[in-house]
């Protein structure tokens, strides 16, 4: 296990390195940032000053080497437009995004697994068909459109929930979070629901598929024959087997939830990393873009590692030693 983890970490460093290079060059190819943030009435002399001040006059490879040298020492550079360390800027926004992603995942799992299990258990019932129809709707509609509809219905027409922004925060176990106040919860509900919708549909479908397959398997028949109650068979044995694909997908999807928060955060003016990255791309704020990528990739590598470890716990047939890291 330890060897496996160490190997993974070594590979991850390589991944981060390759990634930073790709993003660095990619952002460079999009355009010249100075044209975007320099004031329109600035003349050529001012433009030249800005280019020099931000170190953009150096050749790209030199800029990259400089970046790597500083990155090794933990400095990912300063945002062009905010003049704050890019890392700090992102970490500042991270709790808001994690909070949103976490709530969305909880919603997706808490609703998705029971609904999916029911739909798989009684596939021919009307309710099951309604659930499946709903799940199809869930991923048919584009996120941004659903978000605007949610705002229109629940904030504007009904006035039940606030339309945009993050609510008041409070400290719980040393973490500033808006999930600890009513105001905060009321603010997070709509965006989290918006973000969860797609994942909810996915969880429902996966659970249903797993449920249907497992219910036909021999172990279920044996268990029933042994005299176990249906409830016990479903909630202990079948559930455990269904969890394998769900754990994989949830792990994989956590990264995509964080990325897709870009859209939800834009629609709901949620002050998270997603909104920051969209603004940074629009501004070609390269230090922030690169730092954002490195952080999300690191998060993702950790998630993958956890998924693989969980995998081996849930399904003894998959052993980490087999995977050779």
């Amino acid at each position, binding site marked *: 296990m330890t060897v496996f983890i160490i190997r993974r970490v070594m590979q991850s460093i390589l991944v981060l390195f390759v990634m930073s290079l790709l993003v660095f060059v990619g952002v460079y190819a*999009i*355009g*010249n*940032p*100075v*044209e*975007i*943030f*320099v*004031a*329109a*009435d*600035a*003349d*050529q*002399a*001012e*433009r030249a*000053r*800005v280019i020099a*001040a*931000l170190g953009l006059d150096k050749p790209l490879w030199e800029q990259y080497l400089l970046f790597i040298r500083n990155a090794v020492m933990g400095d990912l550079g*300063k945002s*062009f*437009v*905010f*003049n*704050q360390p890019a890392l700090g*800027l992102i970490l500042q*926004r991270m709790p808001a995004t994690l909070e949103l992603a976490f709530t969305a995942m909880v919603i997706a799992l808490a609703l998705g697994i029971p609904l999916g299990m029911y739909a798989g258990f009684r596939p021919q019932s009307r309710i099951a068909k309604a659930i499946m129809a709903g799940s199809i709707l869930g991923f048919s509609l584009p996120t941004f459109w659903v978000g*605007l509809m949610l*705002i229109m219905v629940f*904030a*504007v027409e009904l*006035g039940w929930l*606030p*339309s*945009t*922004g*993050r*609510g*008041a925060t*409070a*400290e*719980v*176990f040393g973490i500033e979070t808006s999930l*600890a*106040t*009513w*105001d*905060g919860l009321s603010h997070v509900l709509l965006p989290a629901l918006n973000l969860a919708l797609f994942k909810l549909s996915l969880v429902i479908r996966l659970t249903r598929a797993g449920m249907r397959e497992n219910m036909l398997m021999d172990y279920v028949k044996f268990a029933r024959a042994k005299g176990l109650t249906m409830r016990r068979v479903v909630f202990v044995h079948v559930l455990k087997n269904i969890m394998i694909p769900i754990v994989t997908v949830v792990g994989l999807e956590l990264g995509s939830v964080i990325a897709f928060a870009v859209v939800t955060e*834009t*629609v*709901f*003016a949620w*002050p998270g990393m997603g*909104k920051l990255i969209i*603004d940074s*791309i*629009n501004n070609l704020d390269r230090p922030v873009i690169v730092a954002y990528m490195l952080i999300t990739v690191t998060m993702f590598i950790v998630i993958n590692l956890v998924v693989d470890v969980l995998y081996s716990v849930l399904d003894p047939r998959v052993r980490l030693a087999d995977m050779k890291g």
Partner: protein
Amino acid sequence: MAKGWLKAALGIFFAGAVCLSAAAQDLTVGLGANVTSIDPHFHNLSPNSSVAAHIFDRLIHQDEKQRLVPGLATEWKAIDATTWEFKLRQGVKFHDGSEFTAEDVVATLKRVPWVPNSPSSFSIYTRAITETIVVDPHTIRFKTKEPYPLLPVDLSTINIVSRKHEQSPTGDFNGGKAAIGTGPFRFVEYVPGDRIVLTRNNDYWGDKPHWQKVTLKLITNGAARVNALLAGDVQIIDQVPTVDIAKLKTNADINLSRIVSNRLIYLHVDSFRDQSPFVTDKAGAVLPNNPLKDRRVRLAISKAINRQAIVERIMDGEAIPAGGLLPEGFFGASPKLKAEPFDPEGAKKLLTEAGYPNGFGLTLHGPNDRYPNDEKIIQAIGPMLSRVGIDTKVVSLPWATFASQSSAPTYAFSLMLVGWGSGTGEVSSPLRSLIATVGPGRGASNRGRYSNPKVDSLLQEALNTVDDEKREKLLQEASEVAMADQAIIPLHYQVNVWATRKGLSYTPRADEYTLAHFVRPAS
């Protein structure tokens, strides 16, 4: 554990209490543009300046029509061709209680070019000053190398900071330590990308603002901003999307206020290259001679565009067809310049005269996330040009790509939609940047590389004329010459629109600033 829960419970209680105490004295504003810093000298960006105008004052303020009015200076005059004298307001106090004097102005002028890593410096407005002389604590003189009539206008963009913070880095302003001004509001909190919180400065020297506490919320998505207003989460929003205006007009809970802005939307034409990359024959091969160099072809394009239809159908009436560089009433705007009437037959005739009776092929480029309805406008212009024989393709790009491709040194496009807002509120600004021949200090945004020696010399003369009346004449003449030559093809002037909840009113501003102290209960 128990402690954590207690804290959570208290947090809930506290949040509830905050909600209840949200009194009539609080104002929440929904801002459409992103603010990048509280440091008033860090980034020369309109949204930043708009926020800074709450906390800081300038020597000279611009009123809602961008005319100069006294700020921290009560009067100013040129005492000779190259010296300006400013009398400073007495008895003004900074938020930390210290008195405002000429030394603060000196410190500010030193700080402006010093700010490290500035992505766009305000020093373009201060570098004409070669020497600053403090005559007494409330009189200050500025020397310039050459006669420099724009000095008062330029200084009306510079926020005065306390001399204690001459060397304070940008971070100290964002954190609040250095965000000490003389303005109508005191700084409370800045959460990047989310909000700025301000509280009333009860010692303000001017009219006291109505609001005790102001929260400026950054809501960059237009629909989200309108929704926040309709839901009552904010009391005023700026940059109202044009599509929502008709509906908001009929809403009894909402008031709208509007003013014609300093922003011109226009087409820049490549009138420089002999072969322009997107000017082709009908089969798509680049033409050996660039027809856009011919004034008649540019005029034909202008005549082919139905500006009234664009204003009515795409801008929902929130724009004014344009024929010049700034709307009438702004300094140097020529009243003679009227929008070119829609005349497709005239356009065809001109094309025939110019030797293109069957037209040619063209690609029109434009941004899709920069100006209100930018990509819809170019999409509407495409068929208009095609109808007079110029087969037009339309390509829209994100501003991030468009901005760098369209300017020096690439100049990738042949015909493109761009906008220009004159921050100084007078016509030398677009003349200098858009139309003057590309060279040191000139033509930095001249994406078509237009060049006309007559315009250049008139502009130069105007920029050296201190006498306002004479200068205005010269600027008017320069813009008339340029527009007669179709240097650019103006489309329309934007109208700035704010929407407030019923019971509030806002004094609309040509400079797009959203200032909480101009939001008042409607009388």
